[in-house]
């Protein structure tokens, strides 16, 4: 489960308008996450393929004993089944998983990303189609495995200049995601897809106290801050404070408590940090949200 507050790289945020005119925020998956998912998926694929292959070998051993020398129908059937199994799993694994409602392979699910349709410029968000999934996965071999084979062959000198061509080819495809804003690989371009973060976020408990009767422990009444004392901080600091309160670590609370006291000129006491911070959080948020209603935003402590 991902923590509720994710520090998100703003360069990766994309706003897309849906049919209802709602602005959906997509966060592009990082290249590292995608590579991790790719490696995981091939580990899964390889481990299960090898397990099934061993099963086939084991079966073939039994069949061989039954049929005697000279080959047989059963052995041939096993061979065909194995060939088809290999073809279907190699090509079908990604397609089947990405066509499912979650739009992600096992590896992608683990790192919390999914495939989505890239919105056409000027139009709204689009739905992911089966054709797009097929298309993006058909390019996979050319993008990675074919160049890899060429790269492995190249140093032997057997392929000569073809090996060099393979290396150049490999670079073009493998580095493709680094040469465009949306980190698209060749398959994404041809299919009109992109890969976005798909975290499952749990609803965190409300931090601000409800009427004092409901939560007497957060003694909002004990600490009262003047307007000037609240005016020193903005939304950024509020979010930091929120994170500190949610993480509930003693050391960081003491540090933040001290920092705030120094800033507003109070004499920091000891032992009541959480109550102090909770009170400050509620009153600061109330003040800033009040400003929002009048169209005033204070991004951080440096803004006026």
């Amino acid at each position, binding site marked *: 489960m991902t923590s509720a507050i994710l520090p998100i790289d703003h360069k990766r945020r994309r706003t897309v308008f849906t049919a209802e005119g709602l602005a*959906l925020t997509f966060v592009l998956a990082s290249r590292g996450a995608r590579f991790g998912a790719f490696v995981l998926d091939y580990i899964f694929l390889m481990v299960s393929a090898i397990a099934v292959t061993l099963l086939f070998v084991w079966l073939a051993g039994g069949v061989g004993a039954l049929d005697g020398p000279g080959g047989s129908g059963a052995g041939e059937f096993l061979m065909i089944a194995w060939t088809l199994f290999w073809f279907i799993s190699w090509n079908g694994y990604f397609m089947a998983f990405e066509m499912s409602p979650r739009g992600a392979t096992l590896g992608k699910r683990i790192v919390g990303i999914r495939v989505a349709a890239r919105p056409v410029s000027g139009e709204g968000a689009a739905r992911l189609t089966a054709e797009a999934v097929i298309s993006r996965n058909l390019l996979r071999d050319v993008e990675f495995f074919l160049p890899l084979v060429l790269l492995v062959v190249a140093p032997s000198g057997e392929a000569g200049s073809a090996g060099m061509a393979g290396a150049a080819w490999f670079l073009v495809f493998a580095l493709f995601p680094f040469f465009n804003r949306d980190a698209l690989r060749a398959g994404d371009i041809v299919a009109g897809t992109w890969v976005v973060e798909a975290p499952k976020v749990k609803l965190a408990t409300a931090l601000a106290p409800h009427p004092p009767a409901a939560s007497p422990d957060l003694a909002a009444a004990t600490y009262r801050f003047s307007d000037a004392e609240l005016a020193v901080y903005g939304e950024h600091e509020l979010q930091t404070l929120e994170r500190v309160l949610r993480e509930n670590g003693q050391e960081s609370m003491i540090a933040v408590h001290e920092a705030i006291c120094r800033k507003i000129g109070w004499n920091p006491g000891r032992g009541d940090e959480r109550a102090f911070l909770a009170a400050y959080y509620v009153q600061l948020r109330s003040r800033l949200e009040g400003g929002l209603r009048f169209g005033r935003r204070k991004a951080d402590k440096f803004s006026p």
Partner: protein
Amino acid sequence: MTQVQGAIEAAALRSDRFRLAREDDWKRLDSIVSRLESGRLRKLSDDDVLALPALYRTAASSLAVARETSLDAATIAYLEALVRRAWFQVYGPRQGFARWFAQFLGGGLSRAVRSIWPDILIALAVMVAGAIAGWMLVAQDQEWYWSLVPSQFADTRVPGASRDVLLQALGTEDSAAGLSGFAAHLFQNNAGVSILAFALGFAFGIPTLLLLLKEMATLGAMMWLFASQGLAFEFSAWLAVHGTTELFAILLAGAAGVHVGRAMAFPGERAVLSAAAAAGRRAATVMAGVVLMLIFAALLEAFPRQLVSGAWDRMLIGSAMLALWLAYFFAFRRNTQGAPA
């Protein structure tokens, strides 16, 4: 004093009251979406299915309001993730694989093939040129045969071989044993070549054309070899059984690659990215058809070709398959433009 306190409390609570009032709806949406995501459709009650669009809109408007009025980062992060997940389910691909496949066979495939007809003509021209070039090169200098035809094929079928030896290479097997394994192998091999032809289209289609040229030059060279011993018809018939299907499939795969490459090189008025994406999806439909055709081709290659011996019979099977594909792709027009009923 109490007045100030009351004001603070009221203000502090406003965004939280908003949240508390809607929290249950969000959580219900969350659980419906979770069940949809895991594919447990049957566990969804009718009430939940009916409620989904309304709950989605509620959550979406909650998010819009929260963005403007609330500074509760955790709640906004939760809502953004929830609305995005719900959007994927509400607007996700509702059709399962079976539905997609029925639509694909019942018009989707033939429509996609018709829509890339200029690319089919380009690929066809290149393939014909390749075959002619292969023939001409070998006719002028037999040494070319060795560079054009991969050595694994050049068992007995080499320049200078007698007519009998060549004829024997076109012979039949006595029984079907071993043939289905051969078919599976052929299928995998040809599917690989076709996927490659398509994928190479990404580089503006040029490598695709080169690949087609090379494959067909091999065929042209072999054609010359058999023709030089007066076996042109026998060879064509031998090839036609599966060749009309297989070469058609490779033609379509090449055309799909060219289609993508052409869209990227000449996007027209659209942006390169959207042109490439539209072309890629159309081509993907064609590619799914190519894989199906290759399954047919492998079966034809393994059984009828090896078991049916008469040249005329072979020719008949090959022509019938060709006529069938042509009819399916170009004469079969069911209007499935809109969503199926």
